């Protein structure tokens, strides 16, 4: 089941009440001389889902952090339920009924679901935790969401989607009237997204005001009432979502008309096999995976979450060692025992988890860019040539349009999309013959996405073999030459992108189609 949603379903949309529950006016916030927000206004009504759109670094997260008490504005006013307020801290905002669910979920992995929901607010009997009430009340919150999670379950054992439900349950337990969701669907599968949307509709009916931040404009159409667009820290527009098309929203976000989602291909895939993988297996993770990557082509890896796409890429790269299988590059059999070996042979892997696996967040932009290719900025004795390192970083800042005050900025201070560009720059600087891109556009705005697509095409045009792992089917279909479809740890088939469609790919990905030998 995928896409082509009815633009909107009537049962999810009842008119929201008109009086604003919350109004932010003239909010200004500066960070060390950089103006993140400049006189931004934002209004929220009871029982509406209000989308907040903008490119990376437009100020969405900053605005919501101010609303939820994590940051203090330099100027501006917040009026909540008719009275001016200033939330000095998150607990203070929560006490007033404003809760935020972060992209990186904030749960304690080793505690149970119930303990997380009532963390620091545990029901007590005397000095002891009242376990019975703790579990009963957690149960009640979870039931309201209609999700089947045991209050006793340890959070570490839950899927990302379940953890998100726990976060929402936590918000419900404090009787949140304003709920802010930052990229809630970015790591959910289709069916999990479906469940989330049901929950959102439910909350909306109950009168909760929801702020919804997402880069997936297509899915917004189903749940969003109004949309506010920010650009460069300024308010651009607010209006009914139904009245404005997705394209219009995108235009307002980037400040110009966007012709195409995908660049026209300039690459010409050759028939020469560059990378050949045979009989690759990791016990319990994936079995008997074999595929060929040709010079100058973009090969897609499609499949549902947990199908084994990322795991296969990591095994080829040496990040996890496979139990069996052979990898040949340009006809030569490789012994890859670590990422170091793979990189030496010209294979690079750009991880889907940029904060966990991609970046040294405390280090500077320049230091991150050079990390995979120190020899490229150092002399023969291993002494770093700083001017060279800075000029290399500057080159990529210019060519990838990375928004940073300087090459010496710590990466942790950049916005998500710009962080992603730094990771990409790191691998571009390390000349490679094969590049695995795992979800390169996740959490990235439309303008930047286009730039990354163009880059993938250019790399392939230079004769590099590119593997694009993506959960977004339109991206797979728009950008690849062939697509390898995974299901449950097996490579089901390899399709020619020109002669396939979403339905066929989904059938293989969900295991419905008969298996073909790839």
């Amino acid at each position, binding site marked *: 089941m995928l896409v082509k949603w009815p633009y909107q379903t009537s049962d999810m949309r009842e008119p929201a009440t008109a009086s604003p529950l919350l109004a932010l006016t003239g909010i200004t916030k500066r960070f060390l001389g950089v103006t993140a927000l400049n006189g931004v206004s934002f209004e929220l009504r009871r029982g509406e889902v209000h989308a907040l759109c903008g490119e990376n670094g437009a100020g969405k997260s900053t605005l919501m952090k101010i609303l939820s008490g994590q940051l203090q504005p330099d100027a501006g006013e917040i009026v909540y339920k008719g009275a001016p307020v200033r939330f000095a801290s998150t607990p203070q905002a929560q006490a007033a009924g404003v809760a935020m669910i972060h992209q990186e979920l904030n749960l304690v992995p080793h505690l149970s679901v119930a303990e997380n929901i009532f963390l620091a607010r545990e029901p007590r009997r005397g000095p002891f935790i009242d376990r019975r009430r703790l579990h009963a009340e957690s149960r009640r919150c979870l039931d309201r969401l209609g999700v089947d999670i045991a209050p006793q379950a340890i959070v570490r054992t839950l899927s990302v989607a379940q953890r998100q439900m726990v976060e929402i349950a936590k918000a419900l337990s404090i009787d949140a009237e304003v709920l802010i969701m930052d990229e809630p669907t970015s790591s959910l599968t289709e069916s999990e997204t479906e469940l989330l949307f049901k929950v959102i509709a439910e909350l909306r009916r109950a009168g909760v005001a929801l702020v919804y931040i997402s880069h997936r404009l297509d899915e917004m159409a189903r749940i969003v009432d109004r949309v506010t667009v920010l650009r460069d820290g300024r308010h651009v527009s607010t209006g009914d979502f139904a009245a404005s098309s997705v394209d219009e929203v995108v235009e307002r976000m980037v400040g110009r008309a966007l012709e195409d989602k995908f660049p026209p291909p300039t690459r010409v895939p050759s028939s020469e096999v560059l990378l050949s993988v045979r009989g690759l297996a990791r016990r319990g993770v994936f079995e008997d995976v074999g595929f060929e990557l040709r010079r100058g082509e973009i090969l897609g890896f499609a499949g549902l979450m947990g199908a084994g796409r990322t795991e296969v890429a990591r095994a080829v790269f040496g990040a996890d060692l496979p139990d069996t299988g052979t990898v040949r590059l340009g006809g030569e059999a490789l012994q890859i025992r670590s990422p170091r070996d793979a*990189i030496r042979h010209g294979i690079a892997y750009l991880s889907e988890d940029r904060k966990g*696996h991609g970046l040294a967040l405390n280090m500077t932009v320049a230091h991150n860019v050079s*990390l995979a290719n*120190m020899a490229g900025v*150092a002399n023969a004795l291993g002494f770093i040539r700083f001017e060279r390192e800075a000029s290399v970083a500057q080159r990529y800042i210019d060519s990838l349009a990375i928004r940073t005050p300087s090459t010496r900025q*710590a990466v942790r201070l950049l916005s998500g999309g710009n962080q992603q560009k730094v990771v990409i720059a790191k691998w571009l600087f390390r000349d490679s013959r094969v590049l695995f891109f795992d979800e390169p556009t996740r959490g990235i705005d439309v303008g930047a996405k286009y730039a990354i697509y163009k880059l993938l095409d250019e790399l392939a045009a230079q004769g590099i073999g590119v593997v694009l792992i993506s959960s977004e089917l339109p991206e797979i279909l728009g950008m690849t030459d062939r697509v390898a479809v995974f299901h449950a740890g097996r490579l089901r088939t390899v399709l020619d992108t020109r002669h396939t469609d979403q339905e066929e790919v989904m059938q293989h990905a969900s295991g419905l189609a008969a298996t073909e030998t790839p």
Partner: protein
Amino acid sequence: MNDKQKDLFQKFAALASLFGLTIVFAFVSDAFLTVGNGMTVALQVTSIAYLGIGATCVIITGGIDLSVGAILALSGVVSALAVKAGAPVPAGMLAGVLVGALCGVVNGVAVTWLRLPPFIATLGMMLVARGVALQITDAKAIGSLGDSFAEIGNGSLWRVATVGADGFPDVSFPGIPYPVLLMVLLAVAVAVMLNRTTLGRHLYAIGSNSEAARLSGVNVRGVTLFAYVLSGTLAGLTGCVLASRLVTAQPSEGLMYELDAIAAAVIGGTSLSGGVGTISGTVIGAFVIGILRNGLNMGGVSAFTQQIVIGMVILLTVWIDQMRHRR
């Protein structure tokens, strides 16, 4: 403020407190601000500085080395025993340093290949090294090691002295003690390694995000191992220099020195969560501790009170550091 400026600020704060202490103690005691006492302080600081330089590298990778105090004792007695057994002094000292390096290898292997938490691995080494040192000496000090053994710890460069009429030397300039010279050389060499070389960059990268470093092709195990070997080697060197200074090797030498080393690094702005730290900061930190001890001594403050003061200084510095980062 970018990170470079923050770094400067941190150093400036530590440096300012160093000057502050010097001024206060100069008022308390007339003998404090003299060339002779300056050299004494520098000499006393050397041990903390050697160990602190090693500790800084280990802490930058996100680890910790608790074994340096014990390794120091073991290395000292090994070199003394070797010399007693007839080995020439340089060979005996080399043996001591190598024992330290070997302990560092064991620490590094335990942390990287056996994947033990650094705290546990080096805690084990602390007990083992101390135990061995006590065992091979029967818990007795080894004395009368001879003049040549004392040279490196007590000699100095550019010492100007004339033998007076009474037969005693008349010192017009005490010279620069060899241990102080060694400290400067080590500090410069390791600072250059950390700042300017690929190896140093990899140390920071591992401390900042070891998985990202591994996936970027950094030899995480090798580089981490290097940090522990460096720390062990420097501990071995400290043991030899200290034994030479006292012309005695004690198996109970260097008790709690590992904590001084860690404190020096932390006062100097090294973060225990890894990825942050400088040698210049650590050297300043070592001097803060050394001057506090020396000044309090001259002011007649008891050893117990000194501990209390130094403990509070550590808490205060780290608290200020945390406050600054939280903003």
